[in-house]
């Protein structure tokens, strides 16, 4: 009889625990559901009266994603700043700027004054496409369609921030930097990518979900961050589908490639690109074509291959969105 009673009590305890778990889950759901006014307003630099900006729906989509996946409640649309002269900038902890949206990055005296105050008091400025490889710079909107992993800020940015901090310079962000681990420390599932692409992405392109980035530290904190364009991977249209189709640039090699490429004809430009270890890649282009092959510092020659498929595009979108979330979350939490 005693055993039966203890069994009944045990069953009751399990049932109560079960209910408690369900209640906790429900309560959590209710707590995460966000109502009322936004808690965080972020800003975007959109110079010019026309209000034109590249990838217009990108940043709002990223904000919606941050709202969806985190407990941070951001306003659905960024507040627009025309320049860093606008004192409104001090109201926002994070400013997003697409390098190509501003034609002249020379700061006015007031902008220098404001930016210094902003950055020294905890503000964070993220300049997307602030890294754009040399071969992209002649275009009207530099660096908007190629996330080329150059590890050096655009010369225009270097000059602009030299006026703010002559003693500081942009430095490559180490792969172990906490920014890459804030919310998504791992790459998305790459199992659907073609073998050659998967191998390159995991080991070289985005190892451990990192990305080519340079940062300018103020008071020991990364306060200005520049990367090759990633906003092209954020936007969704009104139907919820990705707005852009993204292809992968992959470096591929095979036996004996050096024997041919060292002397192979090329009709376009030849230029250098800075690697993470500050050594230089030498890139060869064919006329009116994307970069064709590369001579790496260790003497390896590889060909650039451009892969396009639905699963590649989807993968890139997921990664860029996760990276965007990591950047904003890092900025807000540090």
């Amino acid at each position, binding site marked *: 009889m005693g055993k039966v009673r203890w069994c009944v009590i045990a069953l009751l305890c399990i049932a109560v625990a079960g209910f408690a778990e369900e209640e906790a889950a429900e309560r959590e759901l209710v707590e995460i559901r966000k109502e009322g006014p936004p808690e965080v307003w972020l800003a975007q630099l959109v110079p010019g009266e026309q209000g034109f900006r590249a990838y217009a729906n990108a940043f709002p989509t990223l904000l919606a994603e941050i709202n969806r996946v985190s407990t941070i409640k951001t306003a659905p649309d960024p507040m627009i700043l025309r320049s860093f002269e606008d004192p409104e900038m001090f109201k926002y902890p994070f400013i997003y700027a697409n390098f190509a949206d501003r034609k002249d990055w020379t700061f006015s005296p007031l902008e220098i004054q404001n930016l210094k105050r902003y950055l020294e008091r905890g503000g964070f400025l993220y300049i997307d496409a602030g890294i754009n490889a040399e071969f992209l710079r002649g275009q009207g909107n530099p660096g908007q369609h190629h996330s080329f992993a150059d590890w050096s800020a655009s010369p225009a940015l270097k000059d602009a921030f030299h006026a703010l901090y002559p003693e500081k310079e942009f430095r490559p962000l180490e792969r172990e930097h906490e920014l890459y681990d804030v919310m998504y420390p791992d790459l998305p599932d790459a199992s659907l990518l*073609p073998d050659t692409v998967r191998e390159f992405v995991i080991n070289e392109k985005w190892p451990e979900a990192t990305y080519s980035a340079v940062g300018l530290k103020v008071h020991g904190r990364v306060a200005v961050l520049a990367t090759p364009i990633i906003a092209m991977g954020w936007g969704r249209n009104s139907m919820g589908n990705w707005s852009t189709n993204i292809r992968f640039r992959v470096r591929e090699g095979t*036996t004996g490639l050096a024997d041919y490429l060292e002397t192979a004809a090329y009709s376009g430009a030849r230029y250098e690109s800075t690697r993470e270890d500050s050594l230089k890649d030498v890139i060869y282009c064919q006329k009116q074509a994307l970069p064709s092959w590369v001579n790496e510092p260790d003497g390896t020659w590889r060909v650039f*291959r451009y892969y396009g498929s639905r699963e590649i595009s989807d993968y890139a979108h997921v990664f860029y969105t996760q990276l965007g979330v990591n950047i904003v979350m890092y900025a807000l939490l540090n």
Partner: protein
Amino acid sequence: MILRALIILLSAALFADQPAGPAAGETRHETEQETITKCLGDLTLADNDKRLRAILILGKYKTAPATMAVLSALGDKHAPVRQAALVSLTETPVIPSFAYNGLLRRLMDADVNIRRLAASHAPTIYSRLRRVRLGKPLDELDKLNDQIVLSAFADEDVVVRRNLYDKFSILRPPAGAAQLLAGLKDPDREIRSLTIRNANMLSEDAMVEAVGPLATDEDANIRREVVRVLRGRAKAKPIMEALAEDADVSIRAEATLNLIMLGDKERTAELLELLGNPALDQAIGIRFVRSTVINAKEPILSQLLQHTRAPYREAAVSTWLQARGKGLAVERLWPFFEDHSSQIRQRAGMYTKGADWTAGELEKLATSQYSDVRAICVRLAAQKPPEVASAIIEELLFDDSDAVREAAVQHILSLQLADWAMVAEDVLETNEFNLRGWAIGTLRSKPKGRELLTELQGSTSDHALAAAIGQALKLRASRARSAVQPNVRVLQGPTTIPTTGSTTIRATGTSTIRITSPAVVPPTPQKTTKPAGERAWEK
């Protein structure tokens, strides 16, 4: 195979007599013909790696011999070579038309990676081929292409099938209805979902019949797609009624909303109840609120306008004000100004036109706990006669909120209320550049303002301020509207400044600027200079 070898040999022969190009820089670089000829020769070798190398390099040259060689490599026996050829031909957004048939064949490749890549490009390629053959009788090649595309829909690899269904509306395969029906029964959830989105390519009867069974799919996302695709279809009413009993609250709500749209108005109460369910997809709830509130009568209207959940209340108030907000009485607007949702308060602020606000009501607004309401109060007060406006706006000059103080300063300067000149001096000496810039712009357009600016320009030790004033004064007088038509308002009596020691004017970031006021300010309505030591600024 023979054809391929012929193309390669012919291409090689074309370049055999071409002279070598000059050396470039330190390393002697070949001419394009030399490089291509070398690679074409490698394509005839049995060594897989050498053929792969040849294709990787040839893919970078857009000349006819190189491209034809890459095209022929689509049929290579070694999969990496075939894949390299496919990637080369699809590298640019515009795929060369002569490669269409060859690329479409890769849908039957033995290698799954190649089939996946081919399936991504197949919809574009096939739609272009279809356009070319429009109005012409099908030849054997067309029939073969049709057959290849249709068989690819039954590929064993789910990614290949997904890539085809994803662009179904572009692909439009022959006998597409059969493919759609097959897609609706596909074991893969994503394919079923993609297919439902394209189901409106079927006739209404066929669509309702085909999609209907998925209303009981075990996957809630599929059932949700069914509700969406059948929206507004009268023939789908029985399916919608079944979905209105779904276990998933969002599906239940969306189906109920669809039924209401189809005329089943008595279901409104059901949906009102569902709004209280925290698991409901907010977007559906908002859609219901927006569609209901405009013509809603009491008590449903009150329920929506006072809903406990802010997003629904916001949607209700916004929509209702937009439709009915013109000329609302103060008492009708008042509750909105007391709402804890700033969106509602600010929306209400847009519909104040036509309401007759008494001084007492404005004073009540000025003491609201919400800064946006106090800012609205400044705007409303500015529309009143100067004596009423001055009393209320001056009080808000020392508000805790930046926005309210800014609004107060702006209106005092532009209407030249009370001791506006003294206020202007204070503002111009702050380092709040936005406010300062605005103040200069406002003063520049008034004769008295220009006088004040000129005087300050000469007396200030702040070079940046002097420069900004100088620049503003240089602007053509014709642009200064009120310089031509001076403001007729007359300065009022003395400014009442709180007798307490100091008042925060504005806080930005971590910096706070404070104005320390004396216990008594002498009544100097026309004062344009500041006695030394009367006020001190500290940063």
